[in-house]
């Protein structure tokens, strides 16, 4: 048990600087705006008094590091400011929309893992065959496919023509699970395709590397069946990388979700951030970027800890 706590402590310590730097980048976004950040935050129609208030409130008259401190203090207390447009608290705006984004992203991740990982295993175990060639070339196609274009084609074919799925919007999973799933299916598929391609390629090359190791020949010489070799030795050896790989897809899914949400008119944080960026609603932009990067970092931390717990070598190190 002591060991576990030490491990957790060490991982947390490693992630702390990443967290600090990431929050600093989010804070720094406002500094990229040409001109006075107070003007940017006040919006176009603010009075001189309001601008002075903002300047004081955010500490823009103080050194940068103090400003960062003030911002971080507010953010840590759940105060991300008010939207310049609706005057709603940014945390509320994000809280309302985040479930929609998360639902589609998790759905897509499940679909992508369920298809991509077996495809990669299949291609690796039959490497050099036509099947492998098919998987590999389909995967290169999947990586180059603009996901929002695929989303448009799916929307046209399966909701406008065939009415299998609703075209736009979303439903809350806990009150209307069937509606939520049917709303999220096409977006999740569109989002999953490039992840399927990435997973299949990576799993194929990782597994191939393991299967081509010297000890594999020994196992075969020992008389082990191909299935046993694959399950007991091949997949076990790639399982740690697999988890890391799946974890790394989370930030790609959020990236994709922004565009996919626009196509299916899903009220998620992706459509919120692009809409707010166009309208120069900076507190909202900063808020969404902060929340998403915090989720990504937490997932990576979690994956890191689980990998460490699964791998006796890492746990001992």
């Amino acid at each position: 048990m002591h060991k576990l706590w030490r491990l957790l402590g060490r991982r947390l310590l490693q992630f702390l600087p990443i967290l600090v730097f990431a929050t600093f980048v989010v804070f720094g976004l406002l500094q990229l705006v040409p001109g006075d950040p107070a003007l940017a935050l006040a919006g176009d129609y603010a009075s001189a008094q309001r601008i002075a208030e903002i300047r004081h409130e955010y500490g823009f008259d103080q050194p940068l590091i103090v400003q960062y401190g003030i911002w971080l203090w507010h953010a840590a207390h759940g105060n991300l400011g008010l939207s310049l447009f609706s005057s709603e608290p940014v945390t509320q705006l994000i809280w309302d929309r985040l479930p929609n984004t998360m639902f589609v992203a998790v759905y897509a991740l499940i679909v992508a893992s369920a298809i991509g990982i077996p495809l990669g295993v299949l291609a690796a175990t039959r490497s050099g065959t036509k099947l492998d060639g098919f998987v590999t070339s389909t995967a290169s196609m999947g990586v180059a496919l603009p996901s929002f274009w695929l989303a448009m084609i799916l929307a046209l074919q399966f909701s406008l023509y065939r009415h299998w799925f609703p075209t736009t919007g979303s439903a809350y999973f806990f009150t209307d699970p069937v509606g939520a799933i049917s709303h999220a299916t096409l977006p999740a598929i569109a989002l999953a395709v490039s992840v399927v391609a990435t997973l299949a390629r990576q799993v194929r090359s990782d597994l191939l590397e393991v299967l081509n190791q010297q000890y594999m020949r020994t196992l075969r010489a020992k008389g082990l069946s191909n299935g046993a070799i694959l399950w007991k030795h091949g997949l076990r050896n790639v399982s740690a990388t697999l988890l890391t790989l799946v974890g790394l897809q989370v930030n790609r899914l959020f990236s994709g979700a922004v565009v996919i949400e626009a196509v299916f008119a899903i009220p998620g944080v992706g459509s919120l951030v692009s809409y707010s960026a166009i309208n120069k609603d900076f507190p909202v932009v900063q808020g969404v970027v902060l929340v998403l990067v915090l989720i990504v970092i937490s997932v990576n931390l979690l994956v890191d800890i689980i990998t460490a717990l699964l791998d006796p070598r890492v746990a001992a190190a």
Partner: protein
Amino acid sequence: MTTIVQKPALVIAPRRGRAARFLRWMRSDIRAVLSIGFLLALLLISILAPVIAPYPPNDQNVSLLLAPPSAGHWLGTDDLGRDVLSRLIYGAPNSLYASFLAVFVAVLLGVPVGLLVGFVGGWFDEISSRFIDALLSFPPIVLAIAVTGALGIGLTNAMLAVGFVFAPFLARLVRAQTLVVKSALYVDASRGFGASTPHIIWRHILPNAIQPVIVQVTLALAVALLAEAALSFLSLGVQPPAASWGGMLARAYNYIEIAPEQMYAPGMAILLTALAFNALGESMRVALDPTMKRR
């Protein structure tokens, strides 16, 4: 994978010089030839757009809105009566410019930082690497959107943002390469002969660390193209009336029920160009990797 080199070629090839070697490589890698051909054609189309486009890109024919393909308009017209084929052709230079600008920015920021971090090492490396990790934790498109919003929307700003978002990937790669090369014997030898640090970085580390960067840069062109399309689709990139493939898709999306055929051509253009960049990158990875060469 594909090379089954006959014995005679093996003997003769080194004597024939570069042209012959290049020809042999082309014969052995059809995929690379196709993608280079496609990209050169695209470049030519971009340069000659005013000559080969049947109509000016913003010419409106108000009597012909959202028309299906016809003899006069091979790919039909859009919602403002503009010729889709012409806009597709005029979109090519914008898309290529965008991809190259983003990757150029990424190289300009990422390579020197990676070299410096890898070369200096120590606590500087520790801190910088955590910072790079932090940047890599951001969902790329989301960060690009935020940076574009801060800088002001438009194609150039959007691509500066995408370049900024890509830079840490390159920095991490170059850092890792630099660490490997730095400890090589010939670097020690060079230092022993009294070579200066800039000389060592320039003459030894950069050339040896750059190979995987060349591959990644080619692959990054595809990602940049897709990012440009996505940002233009969200109207953060190319601003109307300028033509861009992503922007054309955004317009097509608005009329998806009336004129669904509008979305196929721009989407195909993006897909094929991204495929070509990726294929070229993969071929270069094979061609540059010394362990995969079978001569």
